[in-house]
Protein backbone atom coordinates (compact mmCIF):
# COMPACT_ATOMS: atom_id res chain seq x y z
CA UNK A 1 0.00 0.00 0.00
CA UNK A 2 1.42 3.39 -0.90
CA UNK A 3 1.41 6.07 1.75
CA UNK A 4 -1.29 8.67 1.33
CA UNK A 5 -1.00 12.38 1.91
CA UNK A 6 -3.62 14.78 3.17
CA UNK A 7 -4.51 17.94 1.25
CA UNK A 8 -2.41 19.90 3.77
CA UNK A 9 0.80 17.90 3.21
CA UNK A 10 2.66 20.65 1.32
CA UNK A 11 1.52 23.24 3.82
CA UNK A 12 2.81 21.13 6.74
CA UNK A 13 6.11 20.80 4.91
CA UNK A 14 6.35 24.57 4.46
CA UNK A 15 5.76 24.95 8.21
CA UNK A 16 8.73 22.70 9.03
CA UNK A 17 6.84 19.53 9.93
CA UNK A 18 8.61 16.25 10.70
CA UNK A 19 6.52 13.47 9.19
CA UNK A 20 5.81 9.92 10.34
CA UNK A 21 3.78 7.20 8.68
CA UNK A 22 0.52 6.81 10.58
CA UNK A 23 -2.36 4.53 9.54
CA UNK A 24 -1.19 4.63 5.94
CA UNK A 25 -0.75 8.42 5.84
CA UNK A 26 2.30 10.67 6.01
CA UNK A 27 1.35 12.80 9.01
CA UNK A 28 3.17 15.61 10.83
CA UNK A 29 4.39 14.32 14.21
CA UNK A 30 5.76 17.72 15.23
CA UNK A 31 6.87 21.07 13.84
CA UNK A 32 10.06 22.95 14.67
CA UNK A 33 9.09 24.00 18.21
CA UNK A 34 8.72 20.42 19.49
CA UNK A 35 6.08 18.34 21.24
CA UNK A 36 6.24 19.91 24.72
CA UNK A 37 5.95 23.44 23.35
CA UNK A 38 3.11 22.45 20.97
CA UNK A 39 1.30 20.80 23.87
CA UNK A 40 1.54 23.99 25.97
CA UNK A 41 0.45 26.19 23.05
CA UNK A 42 -2.72 24.10 22.77
CA UNK A 43 -3.41 24.31 26.51
CA UNK A 44 -2.76 28.06 26.73
CA UNK A 45 -3.63 29.43 23.31
CA UNK A 46 -4.85 27.57 20.21
CA UNK A 47 -3.48 24.67 18.19
CA UNK A 48 -4.42 23.59 14.69
CA UNK A 49 -4.39 19.86 13.95
CA UNK A 50 -4.77 18.15 10.59
CA UNK A 51 -6.89 15.06 11.22
CA UNK A 52 -7.91 14.52 7.59
CA UNK A 53 -6.69 10.93 7.78
CA UNK A 54 -9.75 10.15 9.87
CA UNK A 55 -12.82 8.76 8.16
CA UNK A 56 -15.83 10.98 7.55
CA UNK A 57 -18.81 8.78 6.80
CA UNK A 58 -22.25 10.05 5.84
CA UNK A 59 -25.16 7.65 6.11
CA UNK A 60 -28.34 8.97 4.57
CA UNK A 61 -31.75 7.99 5.92
CA UNK A 62 -34.62 8.80 8.25
CA UNK A 63 -36.02 7.28 11.51
CA UNK A 64 -35.70 3.86 10.00
CA UNK A 65 -31.95 4.49 9.77
CA UNK A 66 -31.77 5.31 13.50
CA UNK A 67 -33.50 1.99 14.27
CA UNK A 68 -31.07 0.04 12.08
CA UNK A 69 -27.96 1.86 13.35
CA UNK A 70 -28.99 1.24 16.96
CA UNK A 71 -28.37 -2.46 16.27
CA UNK A 72 -24.62 -1.75 16.00
CA UNK A 73 -24.15 1.56 17.88
CA UNK A 74 -25.09 1.64 21.60
CA UNK A 75 -26.24 5.26 21.67
CA UNK A 76 -29.81 6.53 21.87
CA UNK A 77 -30.10 7.53 18.23
CA UNK A 78 -33.84 8.01 18.51
CA UNK A 79 -33.47 10.79 21.04
CA UNK A 80 -30.37 12.43 19.60
CA UNK A 81 -31.16 16.00 18.50
CA UNK A 82 -30.34 17.50 15.14
CA UNK A 83 -26.67 18.60 15.14
CA UNK A 84 -25.93 16.81 18.41
CA UNK A 85 -22.78 14.64 18.62
CA UNK A 86 -22.21 11.54 20.76
CA UNK A 87 -19.10 9.49 21.52
CA UNK A 88 -19.74 5.83 20.84
CA UNK A 89 -18.25 2.66 19.33
CA UNK A 90 -18.71 -0.30 17.06
CA UNK A 91 -18.45 -3.66 18.79
CA UNK A 92 -17.96 -7.29 17.88
CA UNK A 93 -20.19 -10.12 19.17
CA UNK A 94 -17.89 -10.58 22.19
CA UNK A 95 -18.30 -6.94 23.20
CA UNK A 96 -14.79 -5.98 22.05
CA UNK A 97 -14.37 -2.62 20.36
CA UNK A 98 -13.85 -2.46 16.57
CA UNK A 99 -13.49 1.30 16.72
CA UNK A 100 -14.50 4.33 18.76
CA UNK A 101 -16.28 7.13 16.93
CA UNK A 102 -18.24 10.37 17.08
CA UNK A 103 -21.71 10.21 15.60
CA UNK A 104 -23.62 13.40 14.75
CA UNK A 105 -27.23 13.72 13.67
CA UNK A 106 -27.50 15.85 10.54
CA UNK A 107 -30.39 16.71 8.22
CA UNK A 108 -29.62 13.93 5.75
CA UNK A 109 -28.97 11.26 8.39
CA UNK A 110 -25.82 10.69 10.44
CA UNK A 111 -22.18 11.66 10.07
CA UNK A 112 -19.69 9.34 11.77
CA UNK A 113 -16.05 10.23 12.37
CA UNK A 114 -13.88 7.10 12.37
CA UNK A 115 -10.27 6.31 13.19
CA UNK A 116 -7.97 6.32 10.15
CA UNK A 117 -6.66 2.79 10.70
CA UNK A 118 -10.17 1.39 11.15
CA UNK A 119 -12.25 3.36 8.66
CA UNK A 120 -12.31 0.89 5.78
CA UNK A 121 -13.12 -2.02 8.06
CA UNK A 122 -15.78 0.08 9.81
CA UNK A 123 -17.32 0.91 6.45
CA UNK A 124 -17.68 -2.80 5.67
CA UNK A 125 -19.13 -3.57 9.10
CA UNK A 126 -21.70 -0.79 8.84
CA UNK A 127 -22.54 -1.60 5.24
CA UNK A 128 -23.05 -5.28 6.07
CA UNK A 129 -25.25 -4.38 9.02
CA UNK A 130 -27.39 -1.90 7.12
CA UNK A 131 -27.71 -3.82 3.87
CA UNK A 132 -28.44 -1.83 0.75
CA UNK A 133 -31.26 0.28 2.18
CA UNK A 134 -29.14 3.35 2.97
CA UNK A 135 -26.55 5.33 1.06
CA UNK A 136 -23.08 5.36 2.63
CA UNK A 137 -20.41 7.87 1.60
CA UNK A 138 -16.88 7.68 3.01
CA UNK A 139 -15.65 11.08 1.84
CA UNK A 140 -12.37 11.38 -0.01
CA UNK A 141 -12.93 15.01 -1.00
CA UNK A 142 -13.30 16.36 2.54
CA UNK A 143 -10.54 17.36 4.95
CA UNK A 144 -10.90 17.51 8.73
CA UNK A 145 -9.02 19.99 10.90
CA UNK A 146 -9.28 20.54 14.64
CA UNK A 147 -8.74 23.88 16.32
CA UNK A 148 -8.16 23.29 20.04
CA UNK A 149 -7.40 25.43 23.05
CA UNK A 150 -8.84 28.32 25.08
CA UNK A 151 -8.36 30.84 22.24
CA UNK A 152 -9.97 28.68 19.53
CA UNK A 153 -13.42 30.18 19.81
CA UNK A 154 -12.15 33.74 19.52
CA UNK A 155 -9.87 32.85 16.59
CA UNK A 156 -12.43 30.83 14.65
CA UNK A 157 -15.17 33.44 15.15
CA UNK A 158 -13.06 35.93 13.16
CA UNK A 159 -13.27 33.65 10.12
CA UNK A 160 -16.61 31.91 10.75
CA UNK A 161 -19.24 34.24 12.07
CA UNK A 162 -21.47 32.72 14.76
CA UNK A 163 -19.32 29.68 15.52
CA UNK A 164 -18.63 30.79 19.10
CA UNK A 165 -22.27 30.19 20.04
CA UNK A 166 -21.99 26.43 19.40
CA UNK A 167 -22.25 24.30 22.53
CA UNK A 168 -19.92 21.40 23.40
CA UNK A 169 -20.75 18.26 21.36
CA UNK A 170 -22.98 20.21 19.00
CA UNK A 171 -22.44 21.12 15.37
CA UNK A 172 -23.77 23.27 12.60
CA UNK A 173 -23.43 23.96 8.92
CA UNK A 174 -21.51 27.14 8.08
CA UNK A 175 -20.29 28.71 4.89
CA UNK A 176 -16.71 29.41 3.82
CA UNK A 177 -15.86 30.99 0.46
CA UNK A 178 -19.36 30.18 -0.70
CA UNK A 179 -19.05 26.46 0.14
CA UNK A 180 -20.74 24.47 2.90
CA UNK A 181 -18.55 23.40 5.78
CA UNK A 182 -19.63 21.54 8.93
CA UNK A 183 -18.25 22.45 12.34
CA UNK A 184 -18.70 20.66 15.67
CA UNK A 185 -17.54 21.91 19.06
CA UNK A 186 -15.50 18.89 20.09
CA UNK A 187 -12.00 17.51 20.12
CA UNK A 188 -9.44 15.14 21.52
CA UNK A 189 -7.28 17.33 23.75
CA UNK A 190 -9.31 18.05 26.88
CA UNK A 191 -9.64 21.66 25.73
CA UNK A 192 -12.48 23.67 24.31
CA UNK A 193 -12.27 23.49 20.54
CA UNK A 194 -13.77 22.72 17.17
CA UNK A 195 -13.51 20.15 14.41
CA UNK A 196 -14.07 21.54 10.94
CA UNK A 197 -15.03 19.40 7.96
CA UNK A 198 -14.14 21.31 4.81
CA UNK A 199 -13.63 20.54 1.09
CA UNK A 200 -10.01 19.60 0.22
CA UNK A 201 -9.64 22.51 -2.19
CA UNK A 202 -10.40 25.05 0.55
CA UNK A 203 -8.53 23.56 3.51
CA UNK A 204 -5.10 25.12 2.90
CA UNK A 205 -6.55 28.60 2.52
CA UNK A 206 -8.66 28.04 5.63
CA UNK A 207 -5.72 26.71 7.68
CA UNK A 208 -3.57 29.68 6.66
CA UNK A 209 -6.27 32.05 7.85
CA UNK A 210 -6.38 30.42 11.28
CA UNK A 211 -2.59 30.55 11.52
CA UNK A 212 -2.63 34.27 10.64
CA UNK A 213 -5.23 34.77 13.39
CA UNK A 214 -2.86 33.23 15.93
CA UNK A 215 -3.31 29.45 15.89
CA UNK A 216 -0.13 27.34 15.76
CA UNK A 217 0.21 24.05 13.86
CA UNK A 218 0.36 21.02 16.18
CA UNK A 219 1.50 17.49 15.27
CA UNK A 220 0.42 14.02 16.29
CA UNK A 221 3.06 13.90 19.05
CA UNK A 222 1.37 16.62 21.11
CA UNK A 223 -2.04 15.26 20.15
CA UNK A 224 -1.03 12.09 22.00
CA UNK A 225 0.27 13.82 25.15
CA UNK A 226 -2.81 16.09 25.23
CA UNK A 227 -5.33 13.25 24.92
CA UNK A 228 -3.49 11.17 27.51
CA UNK A 229 -3.56 14.02 30.05
CA UNK A 230 -7.27 14.33 29.28
CA UNK A 231 -7.71 10.59 29.98
CA UNK A 232 -9.00 9.86 26.46
CA UNK A 233 -8.51 6.45 24.86
CA UNK A 234 -6.32 5.87 21.82
CA UNK A 235 -7.80 3.13 19.68
CA UNK A 236 -5.49 0.15 19.13
CA UNK A 237 -3.73 0.87 22.42
CA UNK A 238 -6.15 1.63 25.28
CA UNK A 239 -9.09 -0.06 23.58
CA UNK A 240 -9.22 -2.77 20.95
CA UNK A 241 -11.18 -5.82 19.83
CA UNK A 242 -10.54 -7.59 23.13
CA UNK A 243 -11.54 -4.78 25.53
CA UNK A 244 -15.18 -4.15 26.31
CA UNK A 245 -16.55 -0.63 26.86
CA UNK A 246 -17.31 -1.43 30.50
CA UNK A 247 -13.76 -2.68 31.10
CA UNK A 248 -12.54 0.46 29.35
CA UNK A 249 -14.49 2.61 31.83
CA UNK A 250 -16.64 3.95 29.01
CA UNK A 251 -19.99 2.96 30.46
CA UNK A 252 -21.01 6.65 30.39
CA UNK A 253 -20.93 6.51 26.58
CA UNK A 254 -23.68 3.89 26.44
CA UNK A 255 -27.07 5.60 26.70
CA UNK A 256 -29.13 4.56 29.73
CA UNK A 257 -32.00 3.19 27.64
CA UNK A 258 -29.58 1.15 25.55
CA UNK A 259 -27.84 -0.24 28.67
CA UNK A 260 -31.19 -1.42 29.97
CA UNK A 261 -32.78 -2.59 26.73
CA UNK A 262 -29.77 -3.85 24.79
CA UNK A 263 -30.55 -4.85 21.23
CA UNK A 264 -27.08 -4.17 19.85
CA UNK A 265 -24.05 -6.26 18.92
CA UNK A 266 -21.94 -7.02 21.98
CA UNK A 267 -24.73 -6.42 24.51
CA UNK A 268 -24.31 -9.81 26.23
CA UNK A 269 -20.80 -8.82 27.34
CA UNK A 270 -21.95 -5.34 28.39
CA UNK A 271 -24.74 -6.85 30.47
CA UNK A 272 -22.57 -9.46 32.16
CA UNK A 273 -19.83 -6.86 32.85
CA UNK A 274 -22.44 -4.62 34.47
CA UNK A 275 -23.86 -7.51 36.47
CA UNK A 276 -20.81 -8.53 38.44
CA UNK A 277 -18.56 -10.40 36.01
CA UNK A 278 -16.32 -7.39 35.36
CA UNK A 279 -12.75 -8.55 36.01
CA UNK A 280 -10.59 -5.57 35.06
CA UNK A 281 -10.90 -1.85 34.58
CA UNK A 282 -9.07 0.89 32.69
CA UNK A 283 -7.50 3.29 35.19
CA UNK A 284 -5.02 6.12 35.39
CA UNK A 285 -1.55 5.28 36.68
CA UNK A 286 0.69 7.84 38.36
CA UNK A 287 4.33 6.79 38.69
CA UNK A 288 5.77 8.25 41.90
CA UNK A 289 9.08 9.18 40.30
CA UNK A 290 10.09 10.31 36.85
CA UNK A 291 10.03 6.84 35.26
CA UNK A 292 7.98 6.71 32.05
CA UNK A 293 5.74 3.65 31.88
CA UNK A 294 4.85 2.95 28.26
CA UNK A 295 2.53 0.50 26.56
CA UNK A 296 3.30 -3.08 27.64
CA UNK A 297 4.73 -2.26 31.08
CA UNK A 298 3.47 -4.83 33.60
CA UNK A 299 1.63 -3.66 36.71
CA UNK A 300 2.15 -5.53 40.00
CA UNK A 301 0.49 -5.30 43.40
CA UNK A 302 2.56 -4.38 46.48
CA UNK A 303 2.78 -8.15 47.08
CA UNK A 304 4.26 -8.67 43.62
CA UNK A 305 1.20 -10.25 42.09
CA UNK A 306 0.88 -9.35 38.42
CA UNK A 307 -2.37 -7.39 38.18
CA UNK A 308 -2.35 -5.63 34.84
CA UNK A 309 -0.74 -3.85 31.95
CA UNK A 310 -0.04 -0.26 30.90
CA UNK A 311 -1.66 0.62 27.56
CA UNK A 312 -0.23 4.16 27.09
CA UNK A 313 2.18 6.30 29.01
CA UNK A 314 4.25 9.40 28.51
CA UNK A 315 5.38 12.60 30.16
CA UNK A 316 2.47 15.03 30.61
CA UNK A 317 3.80 18.53 29.89
CA UNK A 318 0.92 20.38 31.62
CA UNK A 319 0.81 18.20 34.73
CA UNK A 320 4.62 18.15 34.54
CA UNK A 321 5.05 14.50 35.46
CA UNK A 322 4.96 10.98 34.15
CA UNK A 323 1.42 9.69 33.45
CA UNK A 324 0.01 6.42 32.16
CA UNK A 325 -3.18 4.46 31.76
CA UNK A 326 -3.80 0.78 31.70
CA UNK A 327 -5.92 -2.11 32.88
CA UNK A 328 -5.79 -3.62 36.37
CA UNK A 329 -7.76 -6.33 38.14
CA UNK A 330 -10.95 -4.82 39.52
CA UNK A 331 -9.96 -5.04 43.20
CA UNK A 332 -6.85 -2.92 42.51
CA UNK A 333 -8.67 -0.23 40.53
CA UNK A 334 -9.49 2.18 43.34
CA UNK A 335 -7.69 5.55 43.02
CA UNK A 336 -4.86 5.72 45.54
CA UNK A 337 -4.07 1.99 45.39
CA UNK A 338 -0.30 1.52 45.55
CA UNK A 339 1.13 -0.57 42.73
CA UNK A 340 4.50 -1.37 41.15
CA UNK A 341 5.51 -0.92 37.52
CA UNK A 342 8.15 -3.10 35.93
CA UNK A 343 10.30 -1.05 33.57
CA UNK A 344 13.46 -2.57 32.05
CA UNK A 345 13.55 -5.25 34.72
CA UNK A 346 13.21 -2.93 37.72
CA UNK A 347 10.12 -2.21 39.80
CA UNK A 348 8.98 1.37 40.38
CA UNK A 349 6.27 2.67 42.73
CA UNK A 350 3.06 4.14 41.34
CA UNK A 351 -0.48 4.96 42.40
CA UNK A 352 -3.72 4.16 40.67
CA UNK A 353 -5.29 7.47 39.73
CA UNK A 354 -8.64 8.82 38.65
CA UNK A 355 -8.90 10.11 35.09
CA UNK A 356 -8.46 12.65 33.61
CA UNK A 357 -5.05 13.80 34.85
CA UNK A 358 -5.84 17.27 33.52
CA UNK A 359 -9.28 18.83 33.65
CA UNK A 360 -10.75 21.85 31.96
CA UNK A 361 -14.30 22.99 31.65
CA UNK A 362 -15.95 22.66 28.28
CA UNK A 363 -18.39 25.27 27.00
CA UNK A 364 -21.77 23.69 27.58
Amino acid at each position, binding site marked *: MTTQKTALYDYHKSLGAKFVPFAGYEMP*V*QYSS*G*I*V*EEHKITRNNAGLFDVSHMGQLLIEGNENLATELEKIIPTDLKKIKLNQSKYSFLMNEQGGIYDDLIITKVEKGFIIILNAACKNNDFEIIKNALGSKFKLTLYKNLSLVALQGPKSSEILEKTINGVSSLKFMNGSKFSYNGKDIYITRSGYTGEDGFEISIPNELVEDFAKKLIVQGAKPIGL*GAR*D*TLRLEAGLCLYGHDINESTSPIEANLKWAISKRRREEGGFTGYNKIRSDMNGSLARLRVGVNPTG*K*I*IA*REGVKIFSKDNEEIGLVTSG*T*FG*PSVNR*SIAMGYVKLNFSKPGTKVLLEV*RGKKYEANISALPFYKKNYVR
Partner: protein
Amino acid sequence: MSDKKYSKKHEWVSLEGDVATVGITKHAAEMLGDIVFVELPDKGKNVEKEGQAGVVESTKAASDVYTPVTGEIIETNQSIVDDPATVNKDPEGGSWFFKVKIKNKSELDELMNKADYEKFAKENSN
Protein backbone atom coordinates in the same frame (compact mmCIF):
# COMPACT_ATOMS: atom_id res chain seq x y z
CA MET B 1 39.41 19.49 28.25
CA SER B 2 40.71 17.95 25.08
CA ASP B 3 38.89 17.96 21.75
CA LYS B 4 35.75 15.89 21.67
CA LYS B 5 35.51 12.59 19.85
CA TYR B 6 32.24 11.20 18.54
CA SER B 7 30.75 7.71 18.17
CA LYS B 8 28.45 6.26 15.53
CA LYS B 9 25.87 5.81 18.29
CA HIS B 10 25.78 9.58 18.76
CA GLU B 11 27.76 9.94 21.99
CA TRP B 12 30.60 12.36 22.53
CA VAL B 13 33.72 11.75 24.66
CA SER B 14 36.11 14.26 26.13
CA LEU B 15 39.31 12.95 27.71
CA GLU B 16 41.19 14.47 30.62
CA GLY B 17 44.02 12.28 31.93
CA ASP B 18 42.47 8.82 32.08
CA VAL B 19 38.94 10.10 32.74
CA ALA B 20 36.51 10.25 29.83
CA THR B 21 33.41 12.43 30.12
CA VAL B 22 30.53 11.06 28.00
CA GLY B 23 27.31 12.63 26.78
CA ILE B 24 24.92 12.51 23.85
CA THR B 25 25.48 14.74 20.85
CA LYS B 26 23.48 17.82 19.94
CA HIS B 27 22.31 15.95 16.85
CA ALA B 28 21.06 13.05 19.01
CA ALA B 29 19.24 15.42 21.36
CA GLU B 30 17.55 17.10 18.40
CA MET B 31 16.52 13.78 16.89
CA LEU B 32 15.09 12.55 20.21
CA GLY B 33 13.07 15.72 20.77
CA ASP B 34 12.01 16.83 24.24
CA ILE B 35 13.88 14.66 26.75
CA VAL B 36 11.73 13.84 29.77
CA PHE B 37 13.61 11.02 31.51
CA VAL B 38 17.25 10.04 32.02
CA GLU B 39 18.61 6.89 33.65
CA LEU B 40 22.34 6.70 34.39
CA PRO B 41 24.58 3.74 35.30
CA ASP B 42 25.54 3.15 38.93
CA LYS B 43 28.84 4.51 40.16
CA GLY B 44 31.47 1.79 40.32
CA LYS B 45 29.95 -0.18 37.47
CA ASN B 46 32.30 -1.52 34.83
CA VAL B 47 31.16 -0.79 31.31
CA GLU B 48 32.30 -2.15 27.97
CA LYS B 49 32.79 -0.10 24.82
CA GLU B 50 29.48 0.04 22.92
CA GLY B 51 27.66 -1.51 25.87
CA GLN B 52 24.42 -0.04 27.19
CA ALA B 53 25.09 2.54 29.91
CA GLY B 54 21.91 4.54 30.38
CA VAL B 55 18.54 5.40 28.94
CA VAL B 56 17.00 8.61 27.61
CA GLU B 57 13.32 9.00 26.96
CA SER B 58 11.55 11.65 24.97
CA THR B 59 7.80 12.20 24.94
CA LYS B 60 7.76 9.74 22.02
CA ALA B 61 10.09 6.86 22.90
CA ALA B 62 12.87 5.37 25.00
CA SER B 63 16.42 5.01 23.65
CA ASP B 64 19.50 3.35 25.08
CA VAL B 65 22.68 5.33 25.71
CA TYR B 66 25.93 3.48 25.00
CA THR B 67 29.41 4.07 26.28
CA PRO B 68 32.01 4.65 23.56
CA VAL B 69 34.80 3.58 25.93
CA THR B 70 35.57 0.71 28.34
CA GLY B 71 36.17 1.35 32.02
CA GLU B 72 34.67 2.08 35.42
CA ILE B 73 31.90 4.64 35.99
CA ILE B 74 33.34 7.05 38.54
CA GLU B 75 30.80 9.89 38.41
CA THR B 76 27.31 10.52 37.04
CA ASN B 77 25.46 13.79 36.39
CA GLN B 78 22.49 13.83 38.78
CA SER B 79 21.36 17.25 37.49
CA ILE B 80 20.13 15.76 34.19
CA VAL B 81 18.20 13.08 36.09
CA ASP B 82 16.51 15.80 38.16
CA ASP B 83 15.84 18.03 35.16
CA PRO B 84 15.99 15.97 31.94
CA ALA B 85 15.02 18.96 29.75
CA THR B 86 18.51 20.43 30.31
CA VAL B 87 19.88 17.73 27.97
CA ASN B 88 18.12 19.49 25.06
CA LYS B 89 19.52 22.87 26.14
CA ASP B 90 23.19 21.99 26.58
CA PRO B 91 23.85 18.42 25.38
CA GLU B 92 27.57 18.86 24.70
CA GLY B 93 28.36 21.00 27.74
CA GLY B 94 26.83 20.94 31.22
CA SER B 95 24.51 18.04 30.38
CA TRP B 96 27.17 15.32 30.26
CA PHE B 97 25.97 11.85 31.35
CA PHE B 98 28.82 10.04 33.13
CA LYS B 99 32.58 9.88 33.62
CA VAL B 100 34.53 6.71 32.91
CA LYS B 101 37.99 5.86 34.21
CA ILE B 102 39.24 4.33 31.00
CA LYS B 103 41.47 1.32 30.55
CA ASN B 104 42.67 1.80 27.02
CA LYS B 105 43.19 5.25 25.53
CA SER B 106 43.56 3.81 22.07
CA GLU B 107 39.80 3.17 22.00
CA LEU B 108 39.42 6.89 21.34
CA ASP B 109 41.38 6.56 18.11
CA GLU B 110 38.50 4.54 16.67
CA LEU B 111 36.09 7.45 17.19
CA MET B 112 35.33 10.31 14.81
CA ASN B 113 36.42 13.92 14.99
CA LYS B 114 33.79 16.67 14.90
CA ALA B 115 33.85 17.22 11.13
CA ASP B 116 33.59 13.50 10.33
CA TYR B 117 30.80 13.05 12.86
CA GLU B 118 28.80 15.95 11.46
CA LYS B 119 29.06 14.42 8.01
CA PHE B 120 28.05 11.01 9.42
CA ALA B 121 25.09 12.50 11.32
CA LYS B 122 23.87 14.35 8.24
CA GLU B 123 23.99 11.19 6.15
CA ASN B 124 22.20 9.17 8.82
CA SER B 125 19.56 11.61 9.97
CA ASN B 126 16.63 10.21 8.04
